[in-house]
């Protein structure tokens, strides 16, 4: 089907200096865990997006010199000819699909701890990083400034040789050029500090030098946080923000605008629980609206809705729709709009699992919505193309329509299995997502970006996307309100059975901290609850509530936030150093903590529950259990460990003769039913099994390509055989 004419504007070309962007879809720089060390992953992840219609794709931040080394986080690097060779795999692949390639030249200053290179980062003033622990920069004298600017020039020349079309001087997220610009970092009294012109001098000179070096061949871009969100302490959009854009406008071919800094970059990469679509508009939107630039502007805001994109262009907010997370969640977003099937767009849910892996430092990127993200090269998974399974004649029964079951049934359907039945006990598909996406509250208090709402409503997109896809698949039937016993499964007539029956919270306080139940814990009592019971609302919750958070991710803290937002007096207890530790990786922690603090939640860290009795909970400090406390409560919520609902699987597996008699060739266990996990990993598990349903042993994942150096081997088999000329790159 042809695209809706109202979206035509999104497909207009834009001139970026010497280069032409073929449409208005632009993958802004974002991390994936590939850098220059995993060239296959880098080339294929960006390449898939180019194939999916994005007009340009950029690297992640790309270090220009060993002095800017972010280890253990993975950046790209363009330090030498080896890096040029590896990054050229990416530019070749982008060019094959008609996309421009961008590189974000990065010098981190004190935000780069240099743990691998052991180098000393330089900075405008000797002020330690507010992002890293205990990293002080060396003060830059005039020679240092010249040396670092030459690093940008050398890196830009290498970038041009690597085939990049767009070369950034990256100053957003409070990296070096911004550190010079902002009085928060710059306390100099020479010609590089003090007045606006002096503070802007380093960035301006760097742009001039890079432009002089490669400006005829490449578009020059700069990523700039127009507002540091620190008030008068630093850059504000209405002051130095727009002033800087005007000041160096002649030196750039493209503005890539953001807000905030790296220390709290969740204000830029806003999680959906606090930030709505296009949340940066009040800041980044001022640049074009106030006619402060004559150059094209790209900006972000986790925009997944093509109507919002059109409104952004037509209102003059931006010229180009920038995307990081929406392009990870759906690399084919532009193509789906172009082909008139926006209902197929796999919308980002804003969980920030992708970001969490970069924050952890090392593991490849993941995506809750798109299980193929990061797997394009090493597992050969394409987000839209599915081969017909070698055993497609088999009929498959998938029991349980939660994240793992939905994904597995959908992929099996796309792999053209003869018949797939997805059978669910509840009246809707979705499993745990159906109650988790109801978590949240609105107490009428404004937060900075999201009005008054806080919650996980957008997580329902996990279900919505799969519901549409399952409905389209003629070989997949979804049956609801149907609980299957082992006897039902045996006589179902399926050759392959997949058990995806989810998990449940421990009802007796069994937990990761003590590996034992908690004396007195019993959620069969009407004043003790598991987290799902809080949402379902069948139990009355008293005024004084204690929430035990043993999980380390969002559940306990979110329950506390919800109950406190509803006016309860909440005590939030965790055995760990912080509540919801993983939420630091997903960038949700700062806003969460602001909200918990605002709502007067009493947070007890390094604390564990000793016992529970009617009206009171006894606590102890985990480092010294003589240090005790007792809290009077009316209700207790136990967010302790979860347990797999695997009895159906165990019962089936216990009778192999019955399976054989009924013609059942295999029974697989996936998702939380196998082991409770994050939703992102349940979706992956379901996807993985379906992708490999015709492998020799589908229960065991196939090996993936590891982009490692082989000792003593000078060859480069991956590059020669696959990257240089993959079959789908050969053109007539």
């Amino acid at each position: 089907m042809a695209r809706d004419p109202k979206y035509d504007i999104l497909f207009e070309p834009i001139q970026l200096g010497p280069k032409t962007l073929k449409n208005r879809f632009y993958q802004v720089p974002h991390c994936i865990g590939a850098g220059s060390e995993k060239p296959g992953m880098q080339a294929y992840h960006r390449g898939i997006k180019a194939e999916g219609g994005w007009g340009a794709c950029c690297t992640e931040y790309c270090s220009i010199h060993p002095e800017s080394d972010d280890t253990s986080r993975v950046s790209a690097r363009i330090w030498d000819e080896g890096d040029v060779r590896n990054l050229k795999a990416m530019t070749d692949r982008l060019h094959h699909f008609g996309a421009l390639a961008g590189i974000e030249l990065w010098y981190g200053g004190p935000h780069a701890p240099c743990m691998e290179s052991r180098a000393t980062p330089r900075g405008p003033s000797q002020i330690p990083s507010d992002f890293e622990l205990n990293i002080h920069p060396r003060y830059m004298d005039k020679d240092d400034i010249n040396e670092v600017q030459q690093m940008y020039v050398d890196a830009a020349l290498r970038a041009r040789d690597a085939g990049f079309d767009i070369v950034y001087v990256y100053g957003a997220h409070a990296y070096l050029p911004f550190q010079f610009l902002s009085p928060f970092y710059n306390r100099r009294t020479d010609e590089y500090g003090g007045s606006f012109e002096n503070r802007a001098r380093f960035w301006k000179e760097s742009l001039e030098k890079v432009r002089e070096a490669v400006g005829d061949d490449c578009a020059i871009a700069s990523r700039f946080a127009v507002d540091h969100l620190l008030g008068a302490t630093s850059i504000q959009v209405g002051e130095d923000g727009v002033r800087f854009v005007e000041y160096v406008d002649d030196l750039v071919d493209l503005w890539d605008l953001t807000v905030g800094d790296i220390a709290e970059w969740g204000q830029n990469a806003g999680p959906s629980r606090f930030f709505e679509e296009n949340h940066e508009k009040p800041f980044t939107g001022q640049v074009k609206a106030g006619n402060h630039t004559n150059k094209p502007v790209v900006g972000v805001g986790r925009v997944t809705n093509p109507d919002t994109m059109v409104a952004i262009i037509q209102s003059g907010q931006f010229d180009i729709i920038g995307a990081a997370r929406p392009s990870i969640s759906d690399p084919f977003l532009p193509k789906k709009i172009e082909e008139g099937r926006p209902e197929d767009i796999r919308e980002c849910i804003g969980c920030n699992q992708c970001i969490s892996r970069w924050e952890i430092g090392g593991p490849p990127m993941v995506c809750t919505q798109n299980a193929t993200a990061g797997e394009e090269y090493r597992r050969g998974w394409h987000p839209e193309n599915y081969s017909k399974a070698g055993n497609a004649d088999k009929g498959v029964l998938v029991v349980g329509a939660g994240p793992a079951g939905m994904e597995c049934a959908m992929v099996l359907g796309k792999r053209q299995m003869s018949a797939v039945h997805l059978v669910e006990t509840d009246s809707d598909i979705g499993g745990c997502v159906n109650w988790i996406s109801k978590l949240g509250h609105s107490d009428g208090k404004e937060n900075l970006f999201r009005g008054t709402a806080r919650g996980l409503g957008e997580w329902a997109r996990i279900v919505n996307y799969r519901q549409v896809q399952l409905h389209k698949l003629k070989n997949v039937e979804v049956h609801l309100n149907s609980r299957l016993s082992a006897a039902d499964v045996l006589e179902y007539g399926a050759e392959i059975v997949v058990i995806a029956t989810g998990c449940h919270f421990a009802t007796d306080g069994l937990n990761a901290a003590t590996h034992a139940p908690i004396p007195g814990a019993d959620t069969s009592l009407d004043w003790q609850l598991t987290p799902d019971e809080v949402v379902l609302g069948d139990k009355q919750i008293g005024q004084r509530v204690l929430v035990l958070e043993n999980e380390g991710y969002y559940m306990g803290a979110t329950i506390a936030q919800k109950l406190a937002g509803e006016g309860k007096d909440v005590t939030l207890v965790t055995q760990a150093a912080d509540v919801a530790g993983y939420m630091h990786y997903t960038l949700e922690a700062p806003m969460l903590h602001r909200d918990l603090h605002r709502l007067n939640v009493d947070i007890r860290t390094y604390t564990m529950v000793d016992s529970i009795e009617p009206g009171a909970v006894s606590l102890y400090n985990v480092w010294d259990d003589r240090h005790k406390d007792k809290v009077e409560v009316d209700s207790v919520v136990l967010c302790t460990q979860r347990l797999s609902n695997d009895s159906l699987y165990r019962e089936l597996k216990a009778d192999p003769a019955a399976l054989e008699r009924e013609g059942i060739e295999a029974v697989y266990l996936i998702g939380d039913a196998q082991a409770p996990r994050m939703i992102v990993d349940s979706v992956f598990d379901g996807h993985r099994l379906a992708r490999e349903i015709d492998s020799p042993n589908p229960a065991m994942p196939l090996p993936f390509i590891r982009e490692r150096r082989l000792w003593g081997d000078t060859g480069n088999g991956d590059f020669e055989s696959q990257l240089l000329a993959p079959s789908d790159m050969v053109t007539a």
Partner: protein
Amino acid sequence: MKVVVPVKQVAVVDEDFELADDGTAVDPDFLEWSLNEWDEFSVEAALQLAGDDGEVVVVTVGDDEATEGLLTCLAKGAGRGIRVWEQSLTSADALAVARVLAAVVERESPDLVLCGVQSSDAVNSATGIGLAGFLDLPHVAVARAISGGEGSLTVERELEGGLVEVVRIGLPALLTVQTGINEPRYANLRAIKQAREKPLEVLDLAGLGLSGDDVAGASGGRLRKLAVPEAGEGAEMLTGSAAEVATRIREIVQDRLSA
């Protein structure tokens, strides 16, 4: 109890479609086929009323596409299927189809005939009642509950404005069944496979002792032309982001409320 259930394989039209060149049908390229939603409920009602000792016979008038619909019913538990087709039935209307079905029902002489209230594609609501007319059977339209058994049934029928009429009807009889009357079962994979082994008779008009004239004579009308309605005056198409559309809707509603 023996129950005959006439069913229909209905056309589901794509969101965007074109009409065929002669203007009397939707271009088949834009159609998909599935069992009529109402028939899911009439089949379920028949299976429940027939019980283990009874028999459910599903019958349809349609070309090869309609076999899938019969197989769906057989997989759910119907015992036999009958499909009536010949080329002359291509443009048969509801009454002509009812005339064909009447010949089948006469041959089967069941205790009960259960039709859906209507088909989701043509929406005539005439086939079931027309069939009762041809057979001179007592009938109840738009049944939302059925109870009873030997010799007679008690039927609740849905009326306008939320009213319900309770009717006692002697057998044999014909009911048209409303959606929501029950929870239709689904067939597991084994039953779907086994449905292909069940008897499925394919008949033409001659096989039922009917002539083309019998059917043509029953017909109530002729479809001359389909057309897509022109967009009328007074519609305002709302465009923009969700927030902009919502803002505009609020303005319109406020406007109307204050007017």
